[in-house]
Every structure is written in C-alpha cells, then in structure tokens.
C-alpha cells in the first residue's frame, strides 16, 4: 500500500456571495491548493468533488475553467460530510495506487437557495413533518440535557469559544464580534434550547486539497488515517442521542488505522453546525466520557491555548457552513495549523491533527455519513 500525503490546500473566502458564480468560488480554492502543493494543473490525474446542492454539472463547469478535461471525475453527495467523503475517496485511490495526484474539491452556494435554515426535504418522513436541521439538533440537545444535566451556558460556551477563534480567521463569515455567554443565550431562539448564535450561518464557499503519494517533501502532511462510514439505523432500540454512533464508528476506525489514542491529538476541526454537535462529537471521538463533553469548552481544554484546541478556525459557527465545502475547509485549517502557518490562530502543539465531518438529516438513520481523518507532520 502507498502512503497517502496531503500535498496542498486552498479555500475561497466564506460568506454570502449570491452575486458570484459558484464556479468562481471553486477556482479560488483550487488555484490556491495547486500553488500550495507546488504542482501544475496538468499533474492532476483525477478529480473528486463534494457538493450537496450542486448545481448539477457544477463540477464540469469548474473543470472547464481549469482546463482539467478528460481526467476521471466524479461528484459525491454525503450531506455535510460531502467534502470529506470526496477527500476520503481520493485518499483511498492514492493508497491503492489507482491515481497518483488527486484534486479534491468541496463547493456549495447556499445563498441562492435558502434565506434562512435549509428547507427540509419533503421526501423525507421527518422533513415532511417540518423538522428543520436546528430542530434535529435541538432534539439531540434536549435528550442530552435530560440525561446529563448540562446547562444552557455550557452549550453557549462552545459558541463563545469558536466565535472568539473566528475573529482571527480572515476567511470566516462571522468575525465582527465575539459574543459573551449572555449574548449567545439572549440571541433569538431557533429551536429550544438552541439560540441563533448557537447555529451556523447560511454560507457560500469552496475548499480544495491535493492528495498524492509520498514525494519526499518535508511540508507534505502524512495522512495517517481516513475513515468513512455511512449511517446505520437509529431507532427505538438506540440508547445514544442521534448522531453519536455514526461519529463513534468512524472515530474507532480512524484511531485504529493510525494506531493512536484521542489523547495524542494536538488540534481538531470538528462538526459544530450547532453547539451541541461539538459536544456530542468530542465524546464520540473519545476526548471526554459520555456526559462530560460539555465541560471541555468551559474548562478551557478545547480553547485555542488549551491542551487540545478544537475548531481554532472558528468552526462552522464562525467560518460558515457551505455544506460540501465544509470538510475541505476543515482540512485546510488543520494543514495550516500542522505546518505552523495559522498566524494569529496558531496553536502551540501542532504535530497531529484530526478532522471530523458528520452529515445527517435522513430520518431513522444515525447520520448520512461521517468521515474522520488523522494527519501528522513528518517530524
């Protein structure tokens, strides 16, 4: 098997750009990634694209502008995990020798589709019953609070932490103010107990990554593990809150593949579409026991200057959440952190990083898909 490496990353800015062509967001990201990897476009021998809302054909229109015709290309849709699912396929393709240099692209333009929360999917049993995504996470939060007695301010602390980090991210969508716990809790209620500032914004953006085999460059990052799982039944037999089990399955595979324990991870980017999501995810990743994940932000453990910083980019809560682009944005942040190039956001220890992206929303399943990847420097 071939050791896959991350050669380069790039992203667009994140925000509301309804006046931009969606392809132009992708071109920004790909151009930066190609330059970062130090390759020429002609070296790319396959393209994998992650996008939820497309539009259909967006990948080909992106290819046209890049002159990347004729190479194998496919588009992956795995809800919020689409970008990292595309990345996972690239990593597996390199590992098995199928391709030598793969471009991963995540892209979505939400501002031209939705004015607020994503319109629920009418073909889904729960979507048809008007369950919005913040409502799904609110149901998760209510169950979790009833079981473990987590307070409203513990939830809010996740938003305070990530939004403070986002202030230092020039590409983040929300970087004007870092709210206090009181301000997070006083913001408009969306779905009890989740207030507006505990929900990620509607966003446009793209991210790109170049994956290839070891080529002897010190700056390339070793992809120690990449695990992708699809959802499994989440039903009346399930004792865990929605979503927990899918993240735990992917995490277990990734840690086994890397031969690492959660304590060895220096810095993480995880799926904080809603505050409760970061808490449940960190428990599923093994950073805290069940019911203790809510203590990680208030205790300082996951702050930028803490022992295991989580979402130093500002996370989805600050950077924004253009669904297909999110996983690739997370990868870019971890790459910048591991190489020590995250400027004001730089964390102190940065040898091993982890990205987790979880996509969900299909009724009766514990997720649509989850990807966990572990990367490290070559030191």
């Amino acid at each position: 098997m071939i050791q896959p490496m991350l050669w380069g990353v790039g992203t667009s800015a994140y925000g509301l750009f309804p006046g931009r062509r969606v392809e132009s967001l992708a071109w920004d990201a790909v151009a930066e990634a190609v330059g970062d990897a130090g390759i020429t476009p002609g070296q790319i021998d396959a393209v994998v694209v992650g996008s939820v809302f497309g539009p259909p054909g967006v990948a080909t229109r992106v290819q046209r502008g890049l002159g990347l015709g004729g190479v194998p290309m496919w588009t992956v849709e795995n809800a919020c995990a689409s970008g990292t699912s595309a990345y996972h396929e690239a990593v597996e393709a390199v590992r098995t020798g199928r391709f030598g240099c793969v471009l991963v692209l995540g892209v979505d333009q939400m501002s031209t589709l939705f004015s607020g929360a994503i319109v629920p999917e009418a073909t889904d049993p729960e979507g048809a019953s008007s369950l919005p995504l913040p409502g799904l996470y609110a149901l998760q939060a209510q169950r979790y609070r009833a079981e473990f007695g987590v307070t409203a301010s513990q939830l809010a602390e996740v938003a305070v932490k990530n939004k403070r980090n986002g202030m230092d991210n020039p590409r983040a969508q929300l970087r004007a103010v870092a709210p206090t716990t009181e301000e997070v809790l006083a913001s408009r209620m969306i779905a009890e107990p989740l207030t507006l500032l505990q929900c990620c914004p509607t966003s446009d953006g793209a991210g790109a990554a170049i994956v290839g085999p070891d080529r002897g460059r010190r700056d390339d990052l070793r992809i120690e593990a990449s695990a992708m799982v699809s959802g499994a039944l989440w039903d009346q037999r399930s004792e865990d809150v929605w979503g927990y089990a899918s993240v735990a399955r992917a995490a277990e595979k990734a840690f086994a593949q890397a031969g690492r324990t959660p304590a060895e991870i220096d810095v993480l980017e995880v799926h904080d579409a809603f505050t409760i999501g970061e808490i449940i995810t960190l428990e599923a990743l093994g950073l805290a026991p069940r019911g203790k994940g809510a203590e990680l932000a208030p205790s300082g453990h996951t702050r930028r200057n803490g022992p295991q910083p989580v979402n130093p980019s500002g996370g989805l809560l600050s950077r924004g959440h253009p669904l297909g682009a999110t996983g690739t944005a997370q990868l870019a942040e971890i790459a910048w952190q591991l190489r020590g190039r995250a400027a004001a956001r730089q964390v102190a220890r940065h040898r091993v990083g982890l990205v987790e992206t979880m996509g969900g929303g299909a009724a009766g399943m514990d997720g649509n898909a989850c990807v966990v990847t572990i990367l490290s420097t070559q030191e």
Partner: protein
Amino acid sequence: MAAELGVGRPTKRRSGAAAGGLPVADPRPVFDGQGVQGVRCGTCRYPVAQTGIPWCPACYGPVAPARFTPTGTVWSATVIAIPVGPLRPPFGLAYLDLDDGPRILVRLAEPRVLPPGTRLRITGTDCGDLVAAEERAS
C-alpha cells in the same frame, strides 16, 4: 436592499407543495384513527413505520403489514421558534417511542418541551403530521 436571499427561487431541494414546491409522495407515517400503520418483521418482530420496504432492516426477515398502538413515551421534545414549511412558530416536535412500535416524529398538540418519559397519545393529524397530546390519567 435586494430581495431576500433565496426567496421565490426554485431550489434543488424538493420542498413539497406545502412549502411552495411541486407535490411529492407523502413519506410520513400514517395514523388511521386506531393506530400507526407500518410493517413488522415476522422473524425478529422489528417494527417500522414505513410500508413498501422489501425486508426487515434489522435482520432481513420477511415483513408484514402491522398497526402500532397510538401511545408511547417521549424520547426527546423541542419547540421550534422559526417558521418551517406551512408551520408558524411556536410548534412542538417530539420523538415518540410507541409502546409496541417504532420511534417516530410527532407534532405536539401543545408546544412544550416535554421531558423524556412523558406519556403521549396520538390524537389525529394536522396537514398530514401526526399530532400527539399528553395522556390524561383516567
């Protein structure tokens, strides 16, 4: 200020007739006045509030039509404070574990964050959503 983002545009997402899109087949569980319709596995007894599936999703055994009692306990409940589709806030939603059946999403008759374990009974439907109310102690 330009028109509100996204408003009035067709989307890739099928929003359904209730939200201004084209009609789609209704995927929601059906309450027939006596119980919730679905299927049950003949081998492992696993209940599902869907019809038309080819086998039991839990053990791949054969499934047969079933009707589940309309009572159960709350797994989790919330109150939605934003408009969604045809609904105006506030409205309550809950995962309800039916006594002999599956976990299903129901709309609460009263928008309240009911604690897990609260007893509910499905009393009817509203625009096709199953509506459940707290069971009165008799």
